[in-house]
């Protein structure tokens, strides 16, 4: 019986070793392991995993190819629905999506769909080739997951697609946000972006829409017939507590961008970065884990400071587990109230209060309440704020007719249509900070809406 085989464990770098380098944590399956794991799939008649995937990847179909040892064939199945399988296999929250709905997971361990997707992507050649661009010009703003997914579909259907990227490198959060040890840039990300380029998508870097050129000019003067905005949620939040502008307080965005995009960890790059001997990371999401594990690799003792308990950490279980293995210290039920500085204006300690969990709030999670008189100080050299991000207002402020919500998110309907005709949006720019795969799903949905709009 296929389902009697236990889930095939995946090989990883030893935690002690990987805490000192930026190489990828997970080695992934080899072909033998992948084929064995693939054989566990029951090929359900109504596969729940497909419905749970934001891009509706035909999971049992690609797994069937892996069982046969036809890896290129599996890649072809995946390519119909996803342009970033090597990325998604690594960073998707599979436990709440495909694997979370796998029938095998009811009594045992679900099929390792993410690890299989990754194996296929890493061990196959570029599949898709673009149709000749014979249709209208479409501008895609932002080269993150939403933009890449949208651009890929449109290029496959024959549209003349240009992606505009504000930074000097394509990839968005995949490039500046997610660290090398989770998503290798040259080996994995570049390969997938090259595949998008191979579809005929042009990528113009160093163009900040709203500053370098506006959406109006793209449409009126450069002949773009439709625009997709996938600019993500890039603005860092701060707590608004005293001492936040001391030297040694950074947003997770700054810390990670210096290390990922600007390669501060490499001695051949000029970028400076400051971790020091001890770092407190405030927050409990994936970005907090990424910042903490980066600081650890730069040589610091690292504390995660979070106001609820470990059970409420919004980060993926796997990331929390990896962080614990590597020696990150978790200070739970702890909330900063002030950052204390020395006479030179540098951080010397984080002043916190102890919290306890009270009544459930709107999100259904028990809300943390400060315990009176519980103030204490954690001596630290560096504080990294990882409290979430919100969309950049640059485009909404410089484009007429584009409505935003109170929280700064672009208003768009289910298809991605904004309040301005011909302008579509999706991903974190619409939803606020979420996941790579949800952004890709939104990019694909908007691509269909753009196709319909242009064929009207």
């Amino acid at each position, binding site marked *: 019986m296929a389902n009697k085989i236990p889930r095939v464990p995946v090989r990883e770098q030893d935690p002690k070793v990987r805490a*000192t*380098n*930026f190489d990828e944590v997970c080695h992934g399956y080899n072909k033998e392991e992948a084929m064995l794991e693939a054989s566990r799939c029951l090929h359900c008649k109504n596969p729940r995993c497909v419905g749970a995937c934001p891009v509706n990847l035909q999971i049992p179909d690609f797994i069937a190819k892996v069982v046969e040892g036809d890896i290129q064939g599996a890649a072809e199945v995946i390519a119909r629905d996803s342009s970033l399988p090597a990325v998604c296999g690594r960073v998707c929250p599979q436990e709440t999506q495909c694997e979370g709905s796998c029938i095998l997971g009811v009594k045992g361990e679900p099929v390792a769909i993410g690890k299989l997707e990754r194996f296929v992507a890493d061990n196959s050649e570029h599949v898709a080739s673009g149709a000749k661009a014979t249709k209208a010009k479409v501008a895609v703003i932002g080269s993150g997951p939403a933009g890449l997914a949208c651009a890929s579909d449109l290029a496959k259907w024959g549209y003349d697609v240009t992606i505009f990227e*504000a*930074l*000097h490198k394509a990839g968005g959060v995949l490039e*500046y946000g997610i660290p090398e040890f989770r998503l290798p840039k040259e080996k994995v990300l570049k390969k997938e972006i090259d595949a998008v380029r191979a579809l005929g998508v042009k990528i113009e*870097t*160093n*163009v*900040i829409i709203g*500053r*370098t*050129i506006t959406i109006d000019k793209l449409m009126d003067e450069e002949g773009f017939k439709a625009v997709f905005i996938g600019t993500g949620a*890039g*603005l*860092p939040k*701060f707590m608004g507590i005293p001492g*936040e*502008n001391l*030297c*040694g307080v*950074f*947003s997770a*965005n*700054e810390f990670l*961008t*210096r290390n990922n*995009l*600007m*390669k*501060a*960890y490499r*001695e*051949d*790059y*000029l*970028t*400076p*970065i*400051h*971790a*020091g*001997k*001890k770092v407190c990371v405030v927050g409990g999401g994936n970005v907090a884990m990424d910042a903490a594990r980066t600081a650890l*690799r*730069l*040589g*610091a*003792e690292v504390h995660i400071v979070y106001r609820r308990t470990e059970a409420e950490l919004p980060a993926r279980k796997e990331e929390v587990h990896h962080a614990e293995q590597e020696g990150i210290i978790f200070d739970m039920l702890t909330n900063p109230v002030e950052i204390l500085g020395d006479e*030179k*204006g540098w951080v010397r300690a984080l002043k916190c209060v102890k919290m306890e969990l009270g009544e459930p709030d709107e999100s259904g999670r028990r809300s943390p309440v400060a315990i009176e008189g519980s103030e204490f100080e954690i001596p630290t050299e560096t504080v990294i704020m990882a409290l979430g991000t919100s969309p*950049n207002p*640059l485009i909404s402020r410089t484009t007429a007719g584009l409505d935003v919500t109170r929280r700064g998110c672009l208003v768009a309907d289910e298809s991605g249509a904004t309040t301005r005709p011909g302008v579509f949006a999706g991903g974190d720019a619409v939803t606020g900070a979420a996941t790579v795969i949800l952004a890709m799903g939104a990019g694909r949905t908007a691509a269909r809406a753009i196709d319909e709009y242009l064929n009207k």
Partner: protein
Amino acid sequence: MYQILTKEMLTPNICRMKVSAQRLAAAAQPGQFLIVRADEKGERIPLTISDYDAKEGTVTIVTQKIGASSSDIIAHEPGEAFSDVVGPLGNASDFCSMPAEELAGQRYVFIAGGVGTAPVYPQVKWLHEHNVPVDVIVGARNKDLLIYVEEFRSVADNLYICTDDGSEGFHGVGTAMLEKLVAEGRKYTQAVAIGPMIMMKFSTLTCKKLGIPIIVSLNSLMVDGTGMCGACRVTVGGKTRFACVEGPEFDGYEVDFDEAMRRQGQYKSEEAEANEHHVCKIGRGK
């Protein structure tokens, strides 16, 4: 790639380059800045825009040799190219969006110091083209470090040169020159100071004393320049603002200069080390 068309050393440490950047040149306005990344391994360095020509598709940048990255920029020669030039960043100066009738009543004075003199030029030029009277006070340590003197002669109503050592023009700092002019009866509706943080701080103190509103242009640390990293945050009027997207120009009266100066020096030790020899950054704390 962004080709370098011309290059000249204005002083032994300050270099002017004209760079090809079509889209940027077409969008640039006075008061804005750009970011240069000289090559693959370089930092993203924010620089002020000293001039722009939409027709030619060029921007002019003026760089002072400070650390390893600015030295790399200066080491480039005409015919070579920078990996990346992006912008324009930040907001245009307030006067760009001022109604004509409001503009008509203005009389500006600029206090320019060091390499900050260069970005004053497009502002003065713009005001001159819009018939707004404008005086310029240029300060430097000595006459060999003065820049943009000839350029200002053609666009400023009055140009006042100040040197710390008295080797040319007024013997003293720019703020002393401003006090002298006001004492002599000159009236200004608006002052603008661009230069080292400490000079902008003292210009603000002087203007406060003289009752003249002052705008300063903050050259904070930045990585992306689009509001993403927050490295450039400054306290203005008791609130945290991002110099890259909300600035770079702010009301000088409201700026916490002491904090801004401390924050600007955050990576000083790293920069100094990078100048001396390269440093392995992994495991530094242990």
